[in-house]
Structure formats: structure tokens, C-alpha cells
């Protein structure tokens, strides 16, 4: 029965990582829904979220951590709007490819602006080191439990916005057909801006959770983690938030089980093998549904 508890532990670690991936994947997929391009700059919002909290804690040590996280999420959310307004919206009518290539430039600018400010040193957040609490052979630290809880609450909040608010309705309409939504009298530019707040904010929160789990982190971690977020997003079907959540769980568990039973050196590779299989099984590419 030792094997069984080992597997349960690996699955648990998978769920913990999935909570970070899910937030990132849902955020990425939401902005894809209304902007229709693959955003290579998205990973930088994770790093900016994490390091905004690092900066806040350094400037004002008395600030409670949850408050610092909330400030960072809002700040990076508006940074997303600013980045979109400055770089993406002006060429939004030129199609997906110029936007995709522009996003690489944006990724470089954001990433190395952060490096220029913070240097390449690895940083941590003031989170206590804890012993895991054992329950039926599965260990989980209170901090890890909080990470899962925060991610789950954030998912619920995004679900609530999508399904039960006017913003959610117009977001879904814009995602389905931006031109039609414009004709129908929806201010789609405002919808795009609000979607960026949610999308970049979700990334910032994902970055903070990532740092809580895997500290110390360098300001360049976002770009590397992007592959994993892409894998979850594409697995769920790009533009589909609920698919992204499911994709995140599958990718998280795959990484964790692969690391535990094969080799921990290739964690990204497991995520990518899943991605390649999905792409090959559906050679026409993953269907782009609405929601």
C-alpha cells in the first residue's frame, strides 16, 4: 500500500501546481477570447505580480501580505490594460501574426524592465516554512492548502463574473464575434480593457502563488512557465475558460506524476508531450469554441 499513498501524494502535488497553472491558463484564455492572438508576453504578468508583492513587502514591512497581494493584483491588472492600449490595440486590425510577434517584443520589454529594476537575484515572500500535516499518508502544508483555496476562490469569482454579470455577458458576446458585438451596440473596446484587467490580474495572482510554492524565484521565471500555461490552455481548447481549468488539472497531475515516477529533470517535457499528443490527435488544431 506504500505505492498507493505515494501516488496519492503525487496527485496532491499535481493539484497544488494545477492551482497556479489554472489561474494563469484561465487568464490567458480569457484575453485570447476577446483579442484572438497568442500572447507570448503573458508570462511576464506572473513575474510582475510576484515582484510587485516583493517590492511592497520590502517598502512597507508592516503591510499584511494578503493586502499586498491584492494591491499587486489590481496594479498588474491595470498594467495589462496599459500594455494592451499601448502595443496591442493599435494593430488589432492587422490579424493574429503581427500581434503575436509584437507580444514577443512586449515580453522582452516587460521582462528586462523588471530585471533592470530588480536584478536577476532570486527573491522570496515572507511565508513561513511549515511541516506538512499528514492525513491518510498524504502530506500537505497549511500554506499549500491556502494556495489551493485561493485559486479555487479566484476560479469561482471568475465563474461568477462570466455567468452572472453584464460584463460576463458582453465578454462572451465579444469573444463569440467581436464585429457582431460592436454592431449590437456593445462597447467592445471597453470590454477588451476590462478583460485585460481580469486576465493580467489572474496572472499576477498566479505569479504570487507560484512564488509562495516554489520560492526563491527570479524575475525571469514567467517566460519559462509560459510553456506550461500554454499547454493547459491549448489542452482545454483556447478561448474556453472552463476547458483551461480542466487542462490545468491534467497538466499539473502529469507533471507531478512524471516527476515522481520518471525523472524530475524533465517536468516541462511531460506537459509538452501531453500538448503534442492533443495537437496530433486533432491535426486541424484545437477547436476554438466560445465559452
Amino acid at each position, binding site marked *: 500500500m506504500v505505492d498507493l499513498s505515494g501516488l496519492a501524494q503525487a496527485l496532491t502535488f499535481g493539484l497544488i501546481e494545477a492551482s497556479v497553472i489554472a489561474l494563469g491558463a484561465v487568464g490567458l484564455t480569457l484575453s485570447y477570447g476577446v483579442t484572438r*492572438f*497568442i500572447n*507570448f508576453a503573458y508570462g511576464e504578468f506572473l513575474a510582475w505580480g510576484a515582484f510587485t508583492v516583493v517590492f511592497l513587502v520590502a517598502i512597507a514591512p508592516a503591510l499584511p501580505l494578503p493586502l499586498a497581494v491584492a494591491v499587486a493584483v489590481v496594479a498588474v491588472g491595470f498594467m495589462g490594460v496599459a500594455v494592451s492600449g499601448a*502595443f496591442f490595440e*493599435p*494593430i488589432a*486590425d*492587422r*490579424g*493574429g*501574426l*503581427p500581434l*503575436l*510577434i*509584437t507580444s*514577443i*517584443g*512586449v*515580453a*522582452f*520589454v516587460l*521582462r*528586462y*524592465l523588471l*530585471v*533592470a*529594476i530588480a*536584478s*536577476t*537575484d532570486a527573491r522570496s515572500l515572507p511565508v513561513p516554512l511549515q511541516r506538512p500535516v499528514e492525513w491518510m499518508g498524504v502530506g500537505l502544508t497549511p500554506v499549500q492548502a491556502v494556495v489551493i483555496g485561493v485559486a479555487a476562490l479566484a476560479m469561482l469569482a471568475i465563474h461568477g463574473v462570466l455567468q452572472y454579470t453584464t460584463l460576463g455577458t458582453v465578454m462572451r458576446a465579444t469573444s463569440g464575434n467581436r464585429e457582431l458585438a460592436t454592431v449590437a451596440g456593445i462597447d467592445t473596446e471597453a470590454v477588451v480593457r476590462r478583460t485585460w484587467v481580469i486576465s493580467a490580474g489572474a496572472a499576477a495572482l498566479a505569479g504570487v502563488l507560484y512564488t509562495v510554492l516554489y520560492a526563491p524565484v527570479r524575475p525571469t521565471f514567467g*517566460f*519559462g512557465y509560459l*510553456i506550461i500555461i*500554454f*499547454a493547459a490552455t*491549448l489542452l482545454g481548447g483556447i478561448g474556453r475558460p472552463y476547458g483551461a481549468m480542466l487542462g490545468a488539472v491534467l497538466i499539473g497531475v502529469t507533471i507531478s506524476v512524471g516527476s515522481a515516477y520518471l*525523472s524530475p*529533470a*524533465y517536468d*516541462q*517535457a511531460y506537459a*509538452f508531450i501531453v*500538448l*503534442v499528443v492533443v*495537437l*496530433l490527435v486533432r*491535426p*486541424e*488544431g*484545437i477547436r476554438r469554441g466560445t465559452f
Partner: protein
Amino acid sequence: MAIVTGWVAFVVTVATIACIYGLLTIGLNLQFGFTGLLNFGHVAFFAAGAYTAAIVSMPPPGTVPGARYMIGLAVPMPAGLLLTLAAATLMGGVLAALIGVSAIRLESHYLAIATFALAGIFYDVLVNERWLTNGTFGMTQVPKPLRATLGADAWALAYLLFAAATLAVVYLLVGRLLEAPFGRVLRGVRESTAAAEMLGKDTDRIKLVAFSLGGAIAGLAGGVYAHYIGSVVTGQFVAGVTFTVWAALLLGGVASHRGAVVGAFILVAFQQSTRFITTAYDAAVAAFPDTLGVVLTALAAPLPGHPAFLPSVRFMIIGLLFILVIRFRPAGVLGDPQEVTVMGSEE
């Protein structure tokens, strides 16, 4: 014989690296500029070539202290250089073919993600498979052919000539290929895969050939690079290389054969010359301690002092280059706006 000193040595170095990046950019242009294939993993083919050249030419592991790699074929130099470069070219092409067989059918944006991720995995392999690559420590005794005979200065010049000749040969060969009917088919596939298929072209095979050729050219660049630097270390093959090559291609002009090489030279010259900003700053402050020196010191005072600051500014400028070229001049310096349809709106 110290004729190759100071500025001359710097120019020789920049020109040699620019020739190597010129090869990389020609390869990427063949894939993206002429065939429309979004390759975001170019560095993997470059690395495959460099490591192949290293493994074929390094001394056997028993003779190198601290070696953890298990294969070093030690082909004799300089005659073996052709062999190592052929092997590097072949390996770059084979890796591209392997990736292409699985990924080439993907819609362009998914191909971008797939190649980006595959390059990341290839990097993980280089770091982890120490028996083959010596891990992060790297293969540090790649022979520099004729270096001992010629001495450092003459060798640097000779190797520049060799790199330039390699670039010229590849430039002419690829130029012929692009003028040939095959070049028109590539453009046809780029403009409309569906139309090319209607005309009875096997578009998957054509894309695969173009992708593999681009990979082979990058592999050759890797071989030339390995014997120039004399060591092959994982830190040289990060994703930043891929995007530097992209920046060179965008700057020079997508789908412009000449532009690809010009872009590589401009970009490498820019990258290398920014290394001298601190030297120039120190010299200026020392030369004019009163007025200019005070102004400069005051201007620089609020800037962070950590060593990553200047390199990160260099990368920010490369990022801005992407943004500005796409927005204001999609044809780059030498591109033909009529040809750069890949950068416009898609179907």
C-alpha cells in the same frame, strides 16, 4: 605581431559573429519569410549543430580532467573541420525534420508554440544528459583549427575569412534555390496552402523540406560557432538567441534574402557595441571631470548599479525593435512591402 588589437580585434570579432548570425537568419528566413513557417525554436538547431561539432571533434573523455561526457571522437584538425561541419549541418537538418514530421501540419500559431516548447525541452536535454553534453559545465575543449599554427591574431582573421566564405556560399546557394521553381512553390505555400494544394502540390512535404533546410543551415551556423568560440556551454543556447535572430530578420526585412544578412550584421554590431557603454562612460567622466563628468554622474546616479542592468537595457531595446518594426515598417530595412504579406492580416 599585434596588428589585430583594440578596435580592429573588436571589428573582427563582431564580423565573425555577424557571419554566424547571418547564417542563422538566412535559415529562419527560408522557413518564415519564404514559407510562412513560424519557428520559435531556432536555437535548438543551432545548439544541435554546435554540440555535434563538439562531440565529433573533442578529445576522448579519458584525456580531459573532470569530463563527464562519454563520447569524443577527436577527428584530426584542420582536415576534420569539413567533417564536423557536415555532421553539424546534418544534425540540424535531422532535428528539424523530426520536429517537422510531427508539428509541420499545425496551424501557424500552434507551430510557434510547438517549436518554442520543443526548443525548451531540447535545452533540458542538453542540461540533463551529461553523458553526451557534459551538462551545464559544457564541452570546453572544442578545437580551433590551425589556431596553434597561426597564432591568435592571424587565426582570428583567417577564421573571419572562413566564416564569411561559408556565409557567401550559403547565401548564393539559397539565393539560387529561391529563384528556382522551388522558391516559387515556397511562396505559393506561404500565400495560400489551400491554393498550392489545389494545384497538386504536396504542401506538407514542401513545408517539411523548407523547415529541414532552415534547420540544417542553423546547424551549420552552430558548427562554425563551436569551432570559433572553442567551447559549447548550455548557457549559450537559451531562447534569447532565437529571438535575437527574429529581431535581425524583422529589422533586415522578412522575405528579403539580402535583408536577412544585413539585419544580422546591424543587430550583432548593435549588441556588441553596447558592451562599450560603460567604458565610454568611464572615459568621459575621467576626461572631463568638471562639467560633463558631473552631469553624467548625476544622470547615472539614480540608475541601478547591479551587473544585470546594462544587458537588460540591451534586451529591452531588442524588444522595442520587434514592436516598432511590426507597427511602423513591417518590411524592415530592405524588405519588399509586396512580399511581406505574411505580416499583414491573415485569411
